[in-house]
Structure formats: structure tokens, C-alpha cells
């Protein structure tokens, strides 16, 4: 077990490469967060995200798989799983919407509001992004940095087609330049069990 800080991998891509990261973001990635903060406060730390965006755009929120009606009284714990989506179609989509008119349809899976959060401190939460939110916040989280198990990172690289590598402009591992071939051949697990991945796009 290596307790040192995870190594960082900084990638720069052409904008066309963004969608290749969507599968990762759908299944979930770890990000740093101030645990003990509300979902709203956490989202407000993201560049470009304001209350109007949270209330107007992020209409469906899950915390640990339960439906959140009030982002003020849903607090993050270390290891929490937070999933974000826009408004969804269908009867179920309407029922899952936060504070929606059909909330009673799913009261058994509603996240219970908490009045007192735990103390605020640095921690990690697993973020899952869906649909319109995936496109809009995906770039922000990738730029800010996500944390991945080294094995997952290796699998991610191995699963990519030629198109992915064509869109890669630069790669730095702890500041040292690498090319596509080196990224594919690198023994990531030997470096550390976790990697911090930051991705920038020419957008």
C-alpha cells in the first residue's frame, strides 16, 4: 500500500476527444470535496456554476442512490455517491425530479433531509454525471481533476480506439512528457494505486 500523494496525469485534448471520457463520468469518478457541505454548496464551488444553474438545470439529484428533493439539506459525507441529471422524461422521470409534483410516487427512495451535517473537512465523493449535465459539467470536473484507480485508468486507455489517440495533444505524468505509446505501456499500478487525472480541452 502506497500512502503517498497520487501521481498526477495531465492530458490535453482536442475538443472532439471530450466524449471519450463520458463513459468514465457516467459510471462515476472520485473528486475532492469538502465533506459536511450541502450538495448546493459543493456545486457552487465549481467554476461557472451558480444557483440559477443548480435550480434551473440540475433537476434530478441522487445522493447514495436516493432521490434528493432539497439540495440545501442533503449533506455530503466522505465516500458519498452524488449523481446529477437534467429534468427527465417519462412518468418516472417526472417522479424522480427534485421537489416535483409527483414526488410522493417514490417516497420510499427519497433522501431523508438532515438538519445537522457533520464537521466540514476535506474528503472525496464519487460523482456520476448524466445526459445534459454530463456534457456541461464533465469538462469542469475533468479540468479540476478526478481520481481513478490505476487499474481503471489502464483499462480505460486500453479500451480506446485510434480516434482517441489522434485527439490527444500532450500528456504529462508528474510533469514529464509522454506519448500515446508510453501511456499505453505504462505500469500504472506500479506507480500508485490511485491516479489523479486532469484533462484540458482546446475549447
Amino acid at each position, binding site marked *: 500500500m502506497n500512502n503517498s500523494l497520487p501521481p498526477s496525469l495531465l492530458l490535453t485534448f482536442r475538443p472532439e476527444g471530450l466524449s471519450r471520457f463520458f463513459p468514465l463520468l457516467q459510471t462515476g469518478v472520485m473528486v475532492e470535496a469538502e465533506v459536511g457541505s450541502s450538495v448546493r454548496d459543493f456545486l457552487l464551488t465549481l467554476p461557472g456554476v451558480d444557483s440559477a444553474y443548480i435550480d434551473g438545470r440540475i433537476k434530478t439529484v441522487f445522493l447514495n*442512490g436516493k432521490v434528493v428533493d432539497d439540495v440545501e439539506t442533503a449533506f455530503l459525507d466522505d465516500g458519498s455517491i452524488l449523481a446529477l441529471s437534467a429534468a427527465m*422524461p417519462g412518468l418516472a*422521470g417526472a417522479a424522480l425530479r427534485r421537489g416535483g409534483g409527483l414526488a410522493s410516487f417514490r417516497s420510499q427512495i427519497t433522501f431523508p433531509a438532515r438538519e445537522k451535517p457533520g464537521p466540514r473537512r476535506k474528503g472525496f465523493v464519487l460523482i456520476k454525471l448524466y445526459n445534459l449535465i454530463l456534457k456541461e459539467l464533465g469538462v469542469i470536473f475533468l479540468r479540476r481533476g478526478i481520481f481513478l484507480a490505476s487499474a481503471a485508468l489502464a483499462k480505460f486507455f486500453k479500451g480506446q480506439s485510434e480516434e482517441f489517440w489522434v485527439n490527444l495533444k500532450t500528456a504529462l505524468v508528474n510533469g514529464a512528457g509522454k506519448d500515446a505509446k508510453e501511456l499505453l505501456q505504462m505500469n500504472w499500478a506500479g506507480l500508485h494505486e490511485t491516479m489523479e487525472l486532469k484533462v484540458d480541452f482546446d475549447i
Partner: protein
Amino acid sequence: MDKILRIDMGAKGGPKASEAELGDYAGMGGRGLTSAIVSREVPPLCHPLSADNKLVIAPGLLSGTIAANSGRISIGCKSPLTGGIKESNAGGQAAQVLARLGYAAIVLEGEPGDDNLYKVVINKDGVKIEADNSLKMLGNYDLIDKIKEAYGEKVACISIGPAGEMKLTAASIACTDMEQRPTRHAGRGGVGAVMGAKGVKVIVLDDAGMKMRPPKDPEKFKEANKVWVEGLRKHPVTGEGLPAYGTNVLTNVVNEAGALPTRNFRFGRFEGASKVSGETEAEIETARGGMATHGCHAGCVIRCSGVYHDKDGHYMTKQPEYETIWAHGAHCEIDDLDAIAMMDRLEDDYGLDTIEMGVTIGLAMEAGLAEFGDAEAAINLVKEVGKGTPLGRVLGSGAAVTGQVYGLEKVPVVKKQALPAYDPRAVQGIGVTYATSTMGADHTAGYAVTANVLQVGGNVDPLKPEGQIELSRNLQVATAVIDSLGMCLFIAFATLDQPETFQALVDMVNAFYGLSLNDEDVVDLGKSILTSEREFNKKAGFTAADDRLPEFFKKDSLPPHNVTFEVKDEELDSVFNW
């Protein structure tokens, strides 16, 4: 749309068509009209495949006009699957073309006295009914190719595949889309079997020389339609989410909620969900040269459909919808989108309900006919249905029959119709609708339509669990109205959130027909449709015991939230107390 076309398939000397005034059916359209005709003219105790049953095909009240998204067609009969009344509706071109030809409905009656298979051709000059046995057992795709050769690329078709000819209770009726592909199906309830029993393979609709239906007040109608279109375009669901990802945008979200029925309703989450999600599907479609955004009929501004290509970039099928992806995906633990798209293609070709078939394949896996997750085996099971083998005929008879044949206890059906893609233990209000709908388990029977605006039965606090009965009632009433207008149900989201968009819909109806309907009239219309449907079902032998979910939903808790269905029977019995 001031006449009804009746075709007596059992007339002396061969099938005969006649036209009649609307009479008592004036002012009705879509589901309102199909359910009225079936309720009044079909003996509730008749055999669904007998001469006494009638197949009623009706465009909505606003179909054939410039009203955006008014292209749904309702198909009604006594269902061979449920034994009760059925209205199943579809998109595609048929509603608009039939309405422009001036028909409020086509009613297929009687049964042919011979073994011929018939083709019905309707155009501005009238109706022709011809025996054409060269069409026998053709798949919908080959059938439409032949029709295209004979009648050109502009006609719309309503047809059945081999499943309908075999009178299987999972058989659908296909309607062609804008590209003249047979991809839009009135899927539920075995309506295709009734068309097969009438001996009709295809109805060809040619509206050449016909014009858009004129509104009574053209200016007001045009203005209301403008507000209507703006409302649909500006709403994030109808203007962004659905166009970008289609209905399959729900897979990830319902999975996260723990409400995605997996491995025949054992679990609420599917590990492979992200591999078959709408987000992934849209990426694949775009990368292969298909389309992630596409309308199913002219005049659709939501465009929630798409075009799915195979790995070589050739057309395979239309974008499989959420329900299809779920039934063949999570329910069968298959995470291969290409395999699911192939099953969608085959089922469209054979003319089968994709929900009923997907659920049935999952049950076949439960019975040991294939392993869960085995995509190739699943495709082969669908092919058995197309071939009409003894096994295929069992599977093509749907989930309830397959469950019975293989001695399964956990069979997810209500009124013998397979449950759609939301586990009623996680989202219990949907369970109320599944249980009590006149149609059998049906996610579209109680849609998120204007319930808050109409407030049928009073205000409901959305955050209190006890509001579910009232909300389900409101939704079922509102949905019956929308189904009568020919409107796509996806308009629901814009009308739910934007009062001006709902008002524009009412204004369009009023301007078109010269009426002054208010909210109360709309509610009364919905209630009257449901009342007539309930009455038919009662006479057909349905009781309160039929308004129940299968027992295992009350007993088996659903991971990850470990919930059971808790709505009491007496509450279910109060849904239609008005």
C-alpha cells in the same frame, strides 16, 4: 374527418367497404373514439379473434392539421392478450395521412370466409380491397418494399408481420415513418393478432391530392400552434434532453434510483447500464453515421428518435427506445447495444411488441432456456417466433403464457400484460397505475400530463406519500384526453411545467373545432373515456382482483433500497371513485 370507413371482411361475395357519418361519435378522436366504438359495438364476452371483435383505427382530433406533434394514431379492440378493452397507439405517418383523407376511423369488422390475405388501399378516389396472397408471411420490411414498388414512396402503411398473421398475442401493428420504414408500432395488447384475424395484411394510405384539415378559426389556430411550438422547443426535456438522447436518456437515471428492473425484477440496478444508456447510444449512432436526433413523423418538433447503424455503417433499425433497451437489456442482463438493436429490428420485422417480447425472453432465461446475459441466445429466441416454431409460438404469446408454460412463479404481468421498465417497488405511484389501468400494466396509461394544472380530485401535497392514489387517478384521466387528441405523450413535460403551453393546447382544440372547452370539460372527457373502458372490462369479467400487481412485489424486497410494494388493496380499489 367527418366519416367512418367500415370494412366488413365477412360480407357475402367478399370484403365490402362502406362509409358512414359520425353520428353519435361526433367530436371524438383517437382513444376516445376507439374506446367508444369498442364499448358500444363489441360484445365484451366475445372471443377477441372472432368475427364479433372489431379493430378500430383512429387518428387524433388534431391529426392531419399543422399542430406540432399531433401524429399519434390509436388502435382499439378487445385485446387477445388481456381479454379487456385495448387502445394502443403509435407514431409514424399514418395518423396525419388518414386524417387528411377525411376519416375519423377505419373499422375492420367480421372475419373473411376464405383463407385469402387482403390489402386495403385508400386514396382520394375511394377504397379498394384486394386479395394478395403474395404478401403472406412477409416481414414488415419486405412487405413495405413491395408496397413502395407498387404505390410509390409517399404512401403511409399500417401493417402486420408474420406474428400478426399467426395471431400471436404479442403481435403489434406497424406504421411507417417518414422514411417509409415500418418502425412505429402500436405494440401493446396483441392488436396485430386482431388485424391478422380480420385477414388484413396492410392498409395503404395515399393522401395525394388532399389538403391539411382546415381549422374553424385559422388565425387563432395558427397563433396557438406558434405558442405551442415555442413551448415545446424551450423546455429542457422536449427541447434538449429528448432530442439529444431519446427516451433511453432514462436508463442511467432510473438505474441510479434503484428502479431499473434487472434479471426479471430481482434487482433495481444493472451493472451494465452505462453500456446501454442513451448517452452511449447517441455516441454510437453519431460515430457510425446514423442519427441521434430524428422525428418519427412530419410535424414533430421534439424529434426523440434516431437511426441506429450497424458496425459497418449500414441501417439496422430506428433508435431503440428506453423500454426496448430495458426489456432486452437489464431485464435479460444483456449489455450489448448491437444485440439489442438487432432484436428491435427483428421484432419490428416480425411485428411484435418489444416490451412483451423482452420480458418474455427474460422469463425464458428464468426457465433455463438460455442463460441471463446471453445475447446470441436471446436473438435466437426472437427468431424462433419469426419462424413460428412451437417454442416461438409460446414465446410470441407473451409473458403470462410463457410463465405458465414453464411453471414460473414470478411473472411480471398485470391483466396478463408485461410490466414496463420501472420497478413499482421503487416508484410506487407507477405501481398504482400499472395495477389499475384499464389496459393492463402500461407506463403510458398515467403519464405526467398536466395533473397539477387540471387538479382532478383536488390538490395533492407532492411530498406526502399518501398522495399516490389521487395522482395516479389524475394522470390516467389526463392521459386519456391526450390520447384522444393524437398528441405525442412527450408533450407532457412542457404542459406540466409551462401553463402557457398547456393553454396553447386547449386553444388549438378550441380554435380548430370552434369550441370553448375549459379545464372541467377536459376532465369530464377523460373520465368518460375511462368509465366506458372500466365498464367494458367489468362486463368482460374483470373484478377488483385484476387490479393488482403480482404477489411477489409485496413479498420480495428490491435491492439496493430493499423496498416492497406497500399500497393497500383498498387504496387501489379507490382509484376510480369519482
